[in-house]
């Protein structure tokens, strides 16, 4: 399977949750305007919260991302994939191997397990986003509040020094 | 407007003031009594007035 090519489908309970994440919660406001926005964030969230999920076909509804939207945002999807491959030590202990997974084997036959890993993080991330943003919200004001708390929680844990990243990039060049 | 003493013109007709006053005096007396006794009705009063005027005008 070649990731990030052609139409992408969400199935079962995850499709359900994606639909809810992209629904209007008040006025004309949506947390996520398109499915691909969910797909951009979910794998990161899934990895950071260390949540994986298996695919299921429960319920009857599916939902998808169209090919043109996939190709428009392919660079982000790919970037996310590379990040996960580089960092997931449970999946691969050796750093060099991880580097290969991220840069060399991406898109080849050798990537089957990796892609499976990536997808399970996607689904896990969908679950987390749903649990944090949709489930506890009953009134329109709740959505905003829960969203803020979700963000604020992350900021307090991982409030990153942007400068550090710039420095690291510079060093590498030399 | 008075042309002779005791004569007045009303609607282009000459009226003898003395005669008119006679009738008037009779009328008031009659009316005062009528207020009390209610003897003569409206119609009858009108008729009485006309008779009186005619009589007064015709006599010398």
């Amino acid at each position, binding site marked *: 399977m070649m990731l990030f090519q052609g139409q992408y489908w969400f199935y079962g309970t995850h499709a359900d949750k994606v639909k809810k994440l992209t629904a209007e919660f008040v*006025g004309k*406001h*949506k*947390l996520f305007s398109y499915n691909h*926005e969910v797909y951009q*964030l979910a794998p*990161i*969230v899934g990895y*950071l919260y260390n949540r994986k999920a298996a695919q299921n076909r429960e319920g009857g509804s599916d939902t998808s991302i169209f090919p043109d939207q996939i190709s428009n945002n392919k*660079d*982000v999807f790919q*970037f*996310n994939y590379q*990040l*996960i491959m580089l*960092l997931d030590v449970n999946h691969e202990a050796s*750093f*060099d191997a991880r*580097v*290969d997974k*991220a*840069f060399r084997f991406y898109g080849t036959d050798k990537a089957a397990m990796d892609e499976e890993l990536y997808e399970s993080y996607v689904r896990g991330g969908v679950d987390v986003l749903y649990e944090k943003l949709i489930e506890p919200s009953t009134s329109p*004001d709740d959505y*905003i509040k829960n*969203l*803020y708390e979700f*963000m*604020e929680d992350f900021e307090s844990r*991982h409030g*990153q020094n*942007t400068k550090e*990243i*710039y420095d*690291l*990039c510079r060093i*590498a060049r030399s | 407007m008075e042309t002779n003493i005791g004569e007045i013109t*009303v*609607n*282009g*007709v000459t*009226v003898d003031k003395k*005669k*008119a*006053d006679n*009738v*008037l005096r009779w*009328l*008031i007396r009659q*009316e*005062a009594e009528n*207020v009390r*006794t*209610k003897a003569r009705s*409206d119609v009858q009063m*009108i008729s009485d*007035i*006309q008779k009186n*005027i*005619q009589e007064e*005008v015709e006599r010398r």
Partner: protein
Amino acid sequence: MLLKSLKLKDFRQFKGEQTIVFSDDPEKNVTVIMGDNGTGKTTLAQAFTWCLYGETDFDDKILLCKATLRDMLPGQTEKVRAELTLTHKGTEYIIVSEQQYRKTDKSDKPVEVAGQRGFTIMYKQGGQVEYVKQSQLDGRMKEILPFELARYFFFDGERITVMSKRLSQGKGDEFARAVRSLLGLDAFTSAIDHLKKTIKDYDKKYDARSDSKIEDYTYQISNFEQTIELIEMRLSEIADEEVLVTERIGDLQAAIEKNKKSEELAEREKKLISRRDALIVQKGRNITGLLSALKRAPAYFAKKMMRDSLQQLTKTGKTDKSVPFVNAETIKYLIERGRCICGAEVCTGTDACNTLTELFSYVPPKSIGDSIADFREKCKERVRISESMFDDFEAKYADVCACDSEYAEVLQDIADVGKQLLGMDDVGKLQADRKRYETNLRGLHMEKSDCERRMGGLETECKRVETERDKLTLKDDNNRRVTIYKAYAQYMYNTLLEQYAEEERKIREELEETVNDIFHSLFDEGFMLELSERYDVNVILSDFGGSSETSTAQNISIIFAFIAGVIKMARESQKEENGLLVTEPYPFVMDAPLSSFDKKRIENVCDVLPRIAEQVIIFIKDTDGEIAEEHLGNRIGRRLTFHAPNNSKTETYVS
């Protein structure tokens, strides 16, 4: 007219047969009837009017004594009777009213009226009792005491409020009517009326055969007169409407003043609602801003991961080892050529060759160096995107919260204002109503002007036609005669009208003077009354005056002085028997006004009254009894008391 006695049978609280005898002594002409509220003072005043006219003001028109009713059996009947004995113009009259009632067995209507009121007037003539003929009853009553006047001589203290109101509007047209008939101008008005009709009747006597033109004119004139009459009627209606509308405008104005505050509140409410709506829009915008910041979330969330992966890449030295623009093809070419770019020899097995071969791993397409470089660029780019993401997000969230809290405040304010407004009339509506009425009034004024103008035009036209007709009629003998007679009648009419107007003016002025005299002898504050042609009452404060008089007390004083004035003038004019105006004095029956006056007033009233009226019958509360004694003592000819046994509301006895 002198009242001698009133005999009542089962009339309201007066159970059984009870007689009240009045004092007719010329010196001691005051009869005092004492009784507390509820014992029947008002009832007694009403007994007069019922006896004479069959009219009462009671809500309950059943006059039968309730105590008597209680003792009756179903089917049984009882009569209510009132017999008033009086003298009028030297003749003694006995006036009787009777009404029969039947007790029923129905619980919702225990008593019903049985038959019509029986009304009889008897008089003594030459030792005999004569009955006034049925057909002449109304006329005789009119002569003895016209109904319109009765209300003024049986002075119902409880109707002061109503009359007071009329006075505060400056209206005295009831007085006008009453005065005219009281002062004996009836003969005048009657004569004027008859003459007018006579003149009209002459028109019918014109012999139309002699000249069809005359008939034509007569017809035209008749039409004119009809139309004029209609217009006059309409003008009268308009006048009445104007009064009502003006009054209503006044009321609305007062209400608007009172509720001016609500206008301010309504303004505030509008502003608050506008702010609330603006806040809602603003919140929407803030949320949109918030959510658009969220678009950068993927980059933001990945920051830690980017840092970690970059760190690891740097640590293990997996950095760019690639050579720009050198790819596998280049190296293959160099190896096959056997010579490097710098010129060094490249043979299999040499260091140079090994180094180059190693490079294969780092140059595209095999190398990942570029990919890593790309990755780093991507990291830089993503970081740049997400740099301010959280700050923006947080700031927008703060805005949303601020918006929310202001919103909550505004909602509360709106609720508060709303609550306040609830208790108030909507000034906007009141003003709209007033505007409507004002427009209405303007319309009426315009219609009035229009009517008057039309009437003027019609009258002129009519006169012109009449003149034309008169010219024609003079030519014909019969018609000539009619014209002459008509001229006489016209002259008489004009003369009387003038004289009448003159007489009325004299009397009105005299009345105004008399009233002011009495007024000042009763109340020495700086008031003066003005009586207009239409008998409108205007109260003027004189220079040295102004007082703390309430308008109620003021109006009572005016009513009082006015009636006293009328009575006084009526008595004085009795001396002019040969005059054209014939009239006679009346008694004054007064229902408990003392409680409305202060002490000084009462003194004055008690002093002046008996001198003005030939006979004074006064109802007072027990508590006022001492005052009455103190001031009227030597004029009191009779004292009576009403008492209700055991504070009964249904039985009163006179002693």
